[in-house]
Structure formats: structure tokens, C-alpha cells
């Protein structure tokens, strides 16, 4: 540890965030310390991590270190390469931005019963865990940090544990996180068994027989997929993410899911190597299902943060579509096309981190200002919170994958990858890929509908409740965090070539090939395959759009009639409408609900009370609960009943079981 390397910077980042966690212990007596020390330290750590990550990405240099802690035969190996660099800068960047937002947000907790030391401490541990997962260079460090990340985020989910729903969400999260963790552990065990060592170095050298490799891949997919929120193991996500404090939701949805994606990429592409196209098909199918189902469930939500959580499932699905395409192309011997898929997936991971954090922070701002989760109690917020409203709108445009913002670029790249299907030899794959692209198109279109609904119901129209009428713009710190994220979203959208140039060292590391042709025509032109196949010049298109807008404004605002007269709305001559006559979020989603009725579990009833007033009740639930989870839970219950027969209450019998176990184990190892 002599010279100054990115890894040293990253270690300092971990140290800083651990210090932040430690200093949070003092906030019990000094609540103001939270804002003055704990969160700035966290932000500082984020900045260091961001710098370390960008530095690594820029130079493409790898650095390794061994931490002088732990047991002598289990070294804590750390490693920072381009792939880790991207995700580290992602964690760091979002942490940094959140640190502007958090002080104002946690202020309300200073006077309540909620424990500030717990919030600050576990946030610090959570971030440290994520940074260490990314930096780890061995299965041991990886798993320890992974569990640190899972456990500390559990405590953040149950931060407001007075509410039963939060406790339930926390339990579900803990349960699934552990099953997932177990699955990842088994995957590493397979690699370690063939590589004779826990370090990633040894695992890379291991050559697994085909069957075992596929098993290891499936275990990793299950484990990381559970953390990432893939269908059908996504159910914890929409429960857990919304109940955490909003800046934590942003970290969980924006960053933690990406850490899971990182884990899968590291495990499959780096450690396992030799990706099969069948794995790609699996990823593609799982990803497409997650994308379409995630966005359909998001469309049905009424709770702002739940809607955003489901939309995370959708976006993770899109990332996995990209990864699946990449695996299919590399498994069938088209490395150049595999690179585009991988870059598309990484780009979308980056984009999703930005716009989802933006959305969660903005939702937090709304929550902070109105104390409402329910969309149907909001309305008209744009006029009361213009800045938040503007940034929220930019977030909506990004997340709905509309040009010229960032979500569009990564989806465009994914489309381009799947349209290269003609290069494949198998006719079946040639049809499968465009169908996946069509699913992606449907997803994008429904996402647009979902965010029209979210924005239209919450920010436009008239206020639907007293609280919404009294909403006030949030503080400068919160707004500045939103502004930063919104600007990043725009920049990622209009300067894709610069981003791809920066990302280029990752495919070079994983696939041995870069994406030079994408930016071969200068920074103005993005040409993933070649200039004849497809080109997109985001900067020029953006300038063109701005010019047209300006021209239209300029031409029309001149002359005698530039004035605008305000008056009552026309509304087809029905007289002045009131707030209750507006479309609600339930009403907005009704056509969609009816068209896709088979995919939901709908409970709709109309009851009539004594005065003859009708009451309409609607419940939309995830059918997977019925199809998968409840049978599973019943099976587990039945099994434990069976096991509980062993429980006779007699100590000597228990001792007998212990003896038997001991004997069997001795026999096994002899």
C-alpha cells in the first residue's frame, strides 16, 4: 500500500462510511450530529468511491490489495477492475447525491421516537457492505459483505417498525435474502470445489464440467435474481422498498439491485467464463417476463413508492434482456454483437440507478411535503412544488424511455442488439429475439402509460385532498439532489458516445473485445454495429428539438396576440369541474386492467349500504402469491409439522438424536 491507487481511495471510502456509521451512535444525545457529521461523512465516502471508480474506468488499470485483518488462512482480498469500477462509481455517485438530500429528510426523525443511531449506523454499514461486495476478490469476503449488506438493509426496512406492515415486509425480505444468499453460497461452493480455493483467482482457473457449470449458473441466477427482484422471486421488493425512508429506498432500488446485477455478471462472465447460449435464453426469458409483468403491476399501483418499486422489477428485467442477448451472441460465436448487448445492459444499469434514485428521492420529497403515499390523495402538486415537479417530470421521461433522455439510449441499444438476430444460425433463436424485442416495446409503451398516470394524477389536475392543497416546496438541499440527478439523466441521454467510450474497458475485460465501432464516427454519432445499420446522433437531435421549440415559441409569441387569458375550463360545457370529478389512478388504469385481466388476481365488489350508496372496492394482487408462494408456504408448514414429531420433550431422546447424528457424521467422513 505504498503508491496512491484507486483501490486505496476505495478503501478510504469504506473507512469513511464506517466512521459515519460509528459516529451515528452519538446521535442519540446529539441529534443534530446526524446532519452535521454522519451524513457529510457518508457523502464524502461516496465522493471517494465515485472518484476511485471513475479513475479505474478511465485508466482501465487493475489494482489488488490484501487487507491485514481476519484469519491468517482467510485473507481479505480486494480487487478493483473496470467492472467493479463502474459499479463502485455508481454506489459512490448515488451516495454522494443522497447526502445532499438526506439532512433535510431525516430532520423529521429528530423529534420522533425513531432511533437516529439505528438509521445512521445501519445506513453506513449498508453502504460499506455494498462497496465491499464490489471490491471483494474472494468468495469469503464477498459473502461476508453480501450478508452485511442484506442484514443492515433489513434493519433499514424495518426502521419504522411500529407498523405491522413494515415488520411483515422486513420479515419477507430477510427470509428471501437468506434463501438467495444460500443459493449464491452454493454456487461459490461449486466453483471453489473445482478451483481449489476461495479466491476469485482460483475460481477463474477452475474448469467445470458442463452440467456443473450450468448448475452453478442457475444457483447464481436464483440467488442474485432474488436480490435483483427478478420474476418470480420479486415479491419482497415491492413490499420492502417502499417502507424504508425514501433516501434508503433510493439506495436500495437505485444501487443495491445493481450490486446484485454486478454479482451475476462477475459470477457468470468473469468467474465461470465460457457462457453458453442456453443460459442466454434463460436470462432472456426471465428478463422479458420480469419486464412485462413488472410494468403491468406497476401500472396497477396506487401507492407512489410501490409503483416505483414494481417499476424496478421492470427495469431489472430490461437489464437482464440485455445480458441474455449478450450471452446468446457470445455463446453462438458472435463476440462483436455480444459486446453491444453487454454494453446495453450496463448502460441501462447505470441509467436505472440514476432515474430510479431520482424518482424515489422525488417521491420522498412529495411524501415529506404532503405525508401522503396514496396517489389518489394528491393532485396539482406541480403548482405548489414547481421544482420538485419539474425534476420528477424529467425522471418520468427518462424512466419511460423517451428520447432524448437516458432511458431511451439504453433501450435503443437493447433493440439494436436484438435486431442483429439475423446473424444467428438457428431459426428458432432468430424468431425468439425479435419477439423479446416486441415484449420490450410493449413494456416501454406500458411504462409510458404508467408514468403518465403517476405524473398526471400526482402533479397535474386539482388537489384531491387538504394535505395536497397545503403542500410546500421542499428545501434547497433536497431540490439540489434532485437537480443533480436530473441533469445526469439528461447528460447520459445526449452524450451516449462518451459514456460508451468510458464503459468500453468492461467488455474488453470480460469478452476480450471492445465496442470501438460504436463511437468510430466521432462523439456526435452512436453507431453500435455500423453506420449503415443504425445511427443515432443524440446531441444533434436534442439541439434540433430545442431549435424547433424555440422557433415555434419565437414565431408564435410575437405580434398582437401573445397574451393568454385565464378562465374556467371548458370541459364540454359541463360547468366548473371539481376535484372529485377528475380521473383517479384506479380509473386511469381501468382499461389496461380490463385488457390484461387474466394476469392479475382481481377482487372487485360493489356493495350497497342502507342509504343506497354504492361502494366500489377493488383489490389487485400478484397472482404469483397463489400460484407459487402459498403452496410453498403450506409445504414448508407440513414439513415442519412432520419434523415436530421429533419433539417429544424427553431430554434423553434428544441426546440420542445427537449421538446418532454424530455417529452418522463420523461414518461419513471416515
Amino acid at each position: 500500500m505504498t503508491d496512491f491507487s484507486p483501490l486505496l481511495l476505495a478503501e478510504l471510502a469504506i473507512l469513511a462510511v464506517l466512521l459515519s456509521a460509528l459516529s451515528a451512535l452519538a446521535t442519540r444525545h446529539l441529534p443534530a450530529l446526524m446532519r452535521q457529521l454522519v451524513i457529510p461523512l457518508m457523502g464524502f465516502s461516496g465522493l471517494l468511491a465515485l472518484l476511485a471508480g471513475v479513475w479505474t474506468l478511465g485508466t482501465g488499470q487493475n489494482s489488488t490489495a490484501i487487507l491485514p485483518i481476519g484469519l491468517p488462512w482467510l485473507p481479505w482480498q480486494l480487487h478493483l477492475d473496470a467492472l467493479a469500477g463502474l459499479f463502485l462509481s455508481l454506489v459512490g455517485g448515488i451516495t454522494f447525491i443522497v447526502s445532499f438530500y438526506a439532512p433535510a429528510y431525516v430532520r423529521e426523525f429528530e423529534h420522533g421516537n425513531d432511533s437516529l443511531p439505528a438509521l445512521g449506523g445501519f445506513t453506513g454499514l449498508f453502504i460499506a457492505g455494498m462497496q465491499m461486495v464490489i471490491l471483494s476478490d474472494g468468495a469469503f469476503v464477498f459473502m461476508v459483505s453480501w450478508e452485511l449488506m442484506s442484514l443492515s438493509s433489513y434493519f433499514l426496512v424495518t426502521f419504522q417498525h411500529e407498523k405491522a406492515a413494515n415488520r411483515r415486509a422486513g420479515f419477507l425480505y430477510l427470509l428471501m435474502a437468506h434463501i438467495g444468499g444460500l443459493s449464491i453460497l452454493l454456487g461459490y461452493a461449486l466453483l471453489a470445489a473445482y478451483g481449489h480455493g476461495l479466491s476469485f483467482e482460483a475460481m477463474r482457473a477452475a474448469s467445470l464440467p458442463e452440467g456443473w457449470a450450468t448448475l452453478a449458473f442457475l444457483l447464481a441466477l436464483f440467488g442474485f435474481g432474488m436480490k435483483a427482484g427478478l420474476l418470480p422471486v420479486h415479491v419482497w421488493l415491492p413490499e420492502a422498498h417502499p417502507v424504508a425512508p425514501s433516501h434508503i429506498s433510493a439506495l436500495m432500488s437505485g444501487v443495491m439491485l445493481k450490486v446484485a446485477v454486478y454479482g451475476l455478471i462477475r459470477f457468470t462472465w468473469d468467474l465461470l467464463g465460457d457462457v453458453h447460449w442456453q443460459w442466454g435464453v434463460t436470462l432472456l426469458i426471465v428478463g422479458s417476463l420480469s419486464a412485462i409483468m413488472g410494468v403491468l403491476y406497476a401500472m396497477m399501483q396506487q401507492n407512489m413508492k410501490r409503483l416505483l418499486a414494481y417499476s424496478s422489477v421492470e427495469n431489472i428485467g430490461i437489464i437482464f434482456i440485455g445480458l441474455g442477448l449478450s450471452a446468446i451472441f457470445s455463446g453462438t460465436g458472435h463476440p462483436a454483437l455480444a459486446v453491444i448487448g453487454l454494453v446495453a445492459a450496463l448502460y441501462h444499469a447505470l441509467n436505472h440507478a440514476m432515474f430510479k434514485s431520482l424518482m424515489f428521492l422525488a417521491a420522498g420529497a412529495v411524501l415529506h411535503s404532503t405525508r401522503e403515499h396514496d396517489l389518489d390523495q394528491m393532485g396539482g402538486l406541480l403548482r405548489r412544488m414547481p421544482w420538485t415537479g419539474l425534476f420528477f417530470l424529467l425522471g418520468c421521461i427518462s424512466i419511460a424511455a423517451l428520447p432524448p433522455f437516458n432511458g431511451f439510449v439504453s433501450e435503443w441499444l437493447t433493440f439494436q442488439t436484438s435486431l442483429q438476430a439475423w446473424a444467428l444460425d438457428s431459426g428458432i433463436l432468430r424468431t425468439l429475439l425479435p419477439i423479446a424485442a416486441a415484449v420490450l416495446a410493449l413494456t416501454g409503451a406500458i411504462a409510458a402509460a404508467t408514468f403518465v398516470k403517476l405524473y398526471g394524477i400526482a402533479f397535474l389536475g386539482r388537489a384531491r385532498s387538504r394535505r395536497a392543497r397545503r403542500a410546500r416546496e421542499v428545501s434547497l438541499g433536497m431540490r439540489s439532489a434532485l437537480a443533480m440527478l436530473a441533469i445526469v439523466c439528461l447528460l447520459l441521454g445526449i452524450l451516449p458516445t462518451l459514456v460508451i467510450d468510458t464503459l468500453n474497458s468492461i467488455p474488453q475485460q470480460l469478452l476480450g473485445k471492445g465496442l470501438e465501432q460504436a463511437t468510430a464516427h466521432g462523439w456526435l454519432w452512436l453507431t453500435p454495429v455500423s453506420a449503415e445499420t443504425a445511427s443515432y446522433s443524440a446531441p444533434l437531435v436534442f439541439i434540433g428539438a430545442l431549435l424547433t421549440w424555440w422557433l415555434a415559441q419565437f414565431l408564435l409569441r410575437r405580434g398582437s396576440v401573445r397574451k393568454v387569458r385565464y378562465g374556467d375550463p371548458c370541459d364540454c360545457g359541463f360547468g366548473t369541474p371539481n376535484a372529485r370529478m377528475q380521473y383517479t389512478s384506479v380509473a386511469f388504469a381501468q382499461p389496461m386492467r380490463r385488457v390484461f385481466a387474466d394476469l392479475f388476481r382481481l377482487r372487485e365488489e360493489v356493495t350497497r349500504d342502507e342509504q343506497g350508496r354504492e361502494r366500489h372496492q377493488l383489490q389487485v394482487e400478484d397472482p404469483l402469491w397463489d400460484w407459487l408462494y402459498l403452496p410453498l408456504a403450506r409445504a414448508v408448514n407440513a414439513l415442519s409439522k412432520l419434523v415436530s414429531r421429533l419433539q417429544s420433550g424427553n431430554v434423553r431422546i434428544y441426546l440420542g438424536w445427537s449421538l446418532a447424528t454424530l455417529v452418522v457424521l463420523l461414518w461419513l467422513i471416515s
Partner: protein
Amino acid sequence: MADLLNPVDWLLALLQVLLFALAAPLLAAWVKRIKSRLQNRRGPSLLQPYRDLRKLFRKEARVANSASPLFRAAPYVVFSATLIAASTVPLLAVHLPTAILADVIVLVGFLALARFFLALAGMDVGSAFGGMGASREMLISALAEPAMLMAIFTLTMSAHSTNLSSVIQHVLDSGLLLRPSFLFALLALLLVAVAETGRIPIDNPATHLELTMVHEAMILEYSGRHLALMEWAAQIKLLLYGVLISNIFLPWGMAQQLEPLPLLIGLAAIAGKLMLLGVVLAVSETLVAKMRLFRVPAYLNLAFLLGLLGMLSHVILEVGV
């Protein structure tokens, strides 16, 4: 790329965009006129949409007092997004610098951006009709977009490019081929175009009957120049789809070089194709009655199925090894 950064070409491209915007009301008027003739009416003059636009531009704009700033910004966003989308469609010549700015997926993206703001503007005033229109429009577009992309993917799979100029060049180069995939894609695109431009049987541009409106419900609160921009954008969108369909499937006559004579021929060719397409649209609008909203998914499913069959027949029949 660099060789396309030629100022004369760019000037021509800008002129083409201008022509696109100026010719858009004419197509709408043409369809209206043919339709009137078919219904034994005389119908308005072909210049009527221009007169309407001029009148609206001169009128004072009235805005509901419950509207937010978004309401006033939306017409400009909708108009410029639609115009940007239109600028990437080759109108007279196959190759223009604007066509490489953005491919067909970006085109769909900009149309989606316009629709996004249109729907938001509909919800802004807080009237029941606006919300209804927005909700329906988003449903229709959500189902139409995959169908449209599926049809386009079929074309791009055989042309190996998503660039519209390359696709058209590919069709021109391969001469007259009876491709089942193109046939299906054409049918799918026709169905989608009808749905996306809000024509009968999906929506009725002439209606102000409350419960059947989709597009009209969203722009109900607009007046003056705002309304003019919205209407103009809708006309540009209609022309865009018309040009897209006729130039991809019948590209003959388009100018291959940027010289006066080929360009003139191109103008004549596209005018002829659009007149024909307009007649087809008018006839179908006269023959078909408007659908109930919940029949629309079946209609768009059919479009998607056609797109899918196009893709399948491309893979199985045309390239199957």
C-alpha cells in the same frame, strides 16, 4: 458519416422538413374531401385546414385557471417532437442527412414523447374528459407500439438496418419481390397507422361526442395558437405515417440523387402515392363504423399478429436455411 455533412444536403433536408410541415394539412384536407364526396357532400376546400390554422394562430389563447405551466409548454413539445420525428422520414429523396440523425426506433421514440406530453396536457386541467382521453390514448398506444415495432422489425431484419434510408434502398435494390413478410408488415402498419393517427374505427377526428372521444378529449381545453399547434402536429403525424408506408413499401420514384429533376419526380411520385393512400383511408372510413373501446385490443392484437406472422414468414420462408 462525415461525407454527409455537406451544407447543401442539409439545406435540402431542412427544406424537406418544411415541406413536410406545410403539406401536412393538405393530406388531411384531401381525405376529408374524398370522404365528403363518398357521402354525397361537397366537402370543404382543400385549403380549409390552412385557413383554420391561420385563424387559430391569430386568436387569443385561453387557458383554464387550474392549468399548470406544463399545459402551456405541452403544445410546443408535442409539435417539435412530431416535427423531429417527421424530419427523419425520407420524403422525396432516399438519402438525406437527417435520416442518419436518427433511425426508425428513434422516430417511434419521438412520437411516444409527443404522446406522453399530449396525455399529460389532457390531465392537467383536471377535467374528467381529459383524464379519460389520456387513459384511453395510453392504452391504445401501448398496444399499438409493439405491433408497429414488430412490423418494422420484420423490415429491418431483411434489410439488416434500422435506418429508414437503408431500408428503402434495400427495397429498391432487390426489385420486385413478392415477400409474404412485407405483405404482412404492410397490413400491420396500415392497422397501426389508423390507430395511432386516431382515425375511424379507433377514434373519430370529427367527433365532439363526449364518450367516444380520445384525441379530441385531450385537447379539449386548448384554444388559439396552442390548439393550432396540436392540430398541426396531428396532421403532420398523419402525413408521417402515410409517407412511411408508401415510401417503404412502394419506394419507386424516389430521388436517388439530390438533383432537381429526380427531386421533382420524387415529389410527383409521393404526391400520387399519398393521394391514393388518402382515397383508401377515406373509403375505409366510410365503410367501417367506429369500434367500442374494448374492441380495440382485438383490433391491435390482429395488427400484432400480422407483424408476428410477417416476422415468422420472413424467418421461415425467406431466409430459412
